[in-house]
């Protein structure tokens, strides 16, 4: 099928205004007749549900957590970008757009990124009006800080918990609408499948995680705001519940999955300490504003206490390699540089997989009080986890899986190729290309939910007869029966191995072969092993308990079963993309100095994979990328 990205015509800076002007409207009385199903209640989901309800649509919103406030957007620490130029340091919509396209290593769709930069300023206005307590200066204006990949200060923040504060803002807007009766909220409810009627997404199948009841919900459009698939690696900075199920199920019903191999490895996380470990903890990138990254110059020094290694014997490798961005080099570049240092035997801490992030100089310069004000909660968190104080000795950090740029393919209206199915936030693929810049995820989630979808959903809805499909339709009956069957199947295997043990094995394999560095041989090996592991899962997993009650093991089994299938597509995409770009680094494709080598001749496209019924043979559809505003160039942060 041909991919129509529906990018509006006209000059880049005018596309969004023109599109808004040209978009069809639905009159207020008719909006009430439409039901929109919003799956997920993070920044994208909450903001979309609240705003669509304000406009008059009937909204049903679903989340698997016990409250919409707990979606994983809440864990974002550092901040949110916006082209406000409150610092008078030369920022503009164009510069944010440019930085994001370049940061994404020229693998994002320009028109989407420009729109994102445009609405970034409205997001800050909106959040402040809701009462989000952003950091402020004494004069009462908003404060900013810098983030990786930018030379201006455009990041707004609320201590080390910007994600929580923005989500609480969106959650309050959602609450306002639930209170008014426009939104019906379904907490502790997990989506199991999409229901497709005559080629359109018209509903979902859910499981009530308290009673076990499997239910059908019909709507005129479905919005997936279900986050990323980082937990395919088992260990990641994602919350334990983050999963690929919603997007994967939609993929199997016809939605294309785009660029799954673009995964972001965050450079500053607390290193792995043992095999009992369940997740990795991020230390915000904002720490790199004041912390200096180094390893010993000589491998022989790695065992020494850091204080005993003199300045002359330290290698501040980011400052050395990337003098103009230094410790604020983008995430993919910083992560690979840390891996290189450790591969050379210069890594510190248990297992030699760690580098120092040192605040000694900043503490000397600004005083411990100022540093504590800026990062106190992060230093406390670090101490709780490691038992070490970062005021007294450098932090030890190592890259970890953090975010996934790939996701379901969407057009400019955020609609997938499956009509009616819209995808927002991290769950879609559109704005970050092959690498996301820091403080841009919150921006995208809220942009999609508050400002994009409320406009772009109307052109689809006007083509639909509202409420014409109900759960009485045979497709719903069929999907319900399939979901019930699947549950019975999990419970009936009664094997020997726990769900977690499979998840851990899959994660290790994918991290090893499709992590920070990838090559043909490794990917082919993974592609041989994944189907075998999947087969073992379906024959020897054990899921205790019953389907008719709260059963966390059953929930995990469903998610891991989908990761088992998705992992194969992830590796297929990584194998097919014979170039290095952003978070996708193929060791066969690099410059002599180790930098990623893109191949614009052959790979300047988004890869949108189509499910064919055979997991080993997906069909590749390409959306060519053209760059009108930002010229394709070798990305340099030197």
């Amino acid at each position, binding site marked *: 099928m041909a991919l129509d990205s529906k990018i509006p015509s006209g000059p880049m800076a005018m596309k969004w205004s023109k599109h808004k002007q040209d978009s069809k409207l639905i009159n207020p009385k008719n909006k009430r007749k439409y039901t929109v199903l919003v799956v997920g209640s993070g920044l994208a989901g909450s*903001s979309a549900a*609240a*705003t669509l309800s304000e406009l008059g649509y009937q909204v049903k919103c679903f989340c698997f*957590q*016990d409250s919409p*406030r*707990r979606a*994983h957007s*809440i*864990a974002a620490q550092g901040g949110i970008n916006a082209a*406000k130029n*409150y610092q008078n340091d030369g920022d503009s919509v164009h510069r944010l757009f440019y930085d994001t396209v370049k940061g994404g290593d020229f693998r994002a769709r320009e028109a989407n990124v420009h729109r994102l930069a445009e609405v970034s300023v*409205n997001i*800050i*206005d*909106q959040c*402040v*009006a*809701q*009462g989000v*307590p952003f*950091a*402020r200066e*004494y*004069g*009462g204006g*908003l404060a900013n800080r810098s983030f990786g990949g930018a030379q201006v200060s455009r990041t707004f923040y*609320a*201590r080390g918990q910007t*994600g*929580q*504060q923005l989500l609480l803002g969106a959650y*309050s*807007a959602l*609450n306002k609408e*639930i*209170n008014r009766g426009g939104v019906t909220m379904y*907490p502790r409810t997990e989506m199991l499948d999409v229901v497709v009627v005559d080629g359109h997404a018209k509903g979902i199948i859910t499981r009530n995680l*308290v009673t076990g009841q499997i239910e059908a919900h019909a709507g005129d459009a479905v919005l997936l705001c279900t986050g990323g698939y980082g937990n395919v690696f088992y260990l990641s*900075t994602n*919350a*334990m*519940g983050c999963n690929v199920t919603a997007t994967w199920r939609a993929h199997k019903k016809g939605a294309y999955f785009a660029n799954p191999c673009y995964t972001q490895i965050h450079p500053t996380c607390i290193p792995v*300490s*043992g095999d*009992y470990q*369940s997740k990795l903890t*991020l230390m915000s990138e904002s720490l790199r504003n004041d912390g200096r990254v180094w390893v010993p110059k000589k491998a022989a020094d790695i065992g020494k206490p850091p204080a005993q290694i003199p300045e002359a014997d330290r290698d501040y490798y980011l400052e050395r390699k990337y003098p103009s961005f230094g410790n604020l080099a983008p995430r993919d570049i910083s992560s690979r540089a840390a891996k290189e240092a450790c591969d050379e035997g210069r890594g510190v801490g248990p297992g030699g997989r760690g580098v120092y992030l040192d605040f000694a100089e900043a503490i000397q310069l600004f005083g411990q009080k100022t540093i504590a004000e800026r990062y106190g909660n992060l230093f406390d968190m670090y101490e*709780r*986890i490691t038992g070490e104080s970062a005021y007294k000795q450098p932090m030890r950090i190592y890259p970890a899986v953090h975010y996934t740029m790939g996701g379901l393919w969407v057009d400019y209206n955020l609609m997938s190729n499956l009509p009616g199915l819209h995808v927002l936030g991290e769950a879609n693929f559109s704005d970050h290309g092959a690498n996301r810049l820091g403080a841009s995820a919150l921006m995208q989630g809220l942009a999609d939910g*508050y*400002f994009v979808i409320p406009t772009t959903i109307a052109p689809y809805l006007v083509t639909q007869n509202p409420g014409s499909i109900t759960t009485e339709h045979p497709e719903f009956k069929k999907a319900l029966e399939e979901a019930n069957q699947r549950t019975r199947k999990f419970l009936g295997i009664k094997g020997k191995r*726990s769900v*977690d043990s499979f998840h851990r094995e899959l994660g290790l394999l994918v991290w090893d072969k499709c992590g920070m560095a990838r090559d043909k041989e490794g990917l082919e090996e993974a592609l041989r092993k994944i189907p075998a592991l999947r087969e073992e899962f379906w024959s020897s997993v*054990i899921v*205790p*308990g019953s389907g008719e*009650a*709260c059963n*966390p093991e059953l929930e995990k089994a469903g998610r891991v079963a989908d990761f088992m299938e998705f992992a194969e597509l992830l590796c297929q995409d990584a194998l097919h993309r014979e170039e290095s770009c952003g978070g996708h680094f193929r060791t066969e494709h690099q410059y002599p100095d180790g930098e990623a080598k893109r191949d614009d001749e052959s790979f300047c496209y988004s890869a949108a994979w189509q499910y064919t019924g055979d997991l080993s043979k997906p069909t590749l559809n390409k959306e060519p990328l053209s760059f009108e505003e930002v010229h394709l160039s070798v990305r340099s942060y030197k």
Partner: protein
Amino acid sequence: MSLLNLHLKVWRQNRGHSGHFQDIEAQDIPDHASFLEMMDIVNERLIAKGEEPFAFDHDCREGICGMCSMTINGVPHGPEKATTTCQLHMRKFRTGDTIWIEPFRATAFPVIKDLVVDRGAFDRIQRAGGFVTVRTGSAPDANAILIGKEVADAAMDAAACIGCGACVAACKNASAMLFVSAKAGQLNSLPQGQPEKDRRTIAMVRQMDKEGFGNCTNHYECEAACPKEISVRWITKLNRDYAVAAVKESLIGHQERAEGGE
């Protein structure tokens, strides 16, 4: 890293039934593991023996989502100050320790299963008034609302609440005053929250009462248990805001017009 041998007494309960403690011997627990990772290990071993694992709530495991909710040795989130259960590490325990693990207990938080409780009451309180009525797209420029750093910082102190419910579990009256005061206090202290201040305060407090939370009798166990160190001074502010709103309401009834209006 050393290994710990622990005697656990973990709460077992099915929805609508009464519960009991189950004794578990947890051997060879790495002291670097988090408390929830210890529970993972225990559960893996139960599954291997063909027994049912313990259900417990958890998600982000970095102390911000507020999902984890265990009372450990009688203290919500356990012995370490300003720390959620997921951030509590086993190095805080000694080998041979007996650890009692219970759900957050309160009438307004019914047990769903084992250590999982229903905290929907918190959501309903927030829905009653925990917002500023502002339509998407109608906001003025962010810097048009100047807010002094001191005011913004105070609002941020209140906003740090993660809605976990430890304050309720710690209180002998199962009062939700710390939670409600932090939520109302954040908005009531900011200029954006002024127009709806009275309405919000009354709505949230009444919903809190309706949910079956107890009264505050100033024991401040809530503050001691709060993983985000929310101060009980917010309760003072809520009492003040409520008094003002309630007096206005009793003297002039439900307000439809400000002074001078018709």
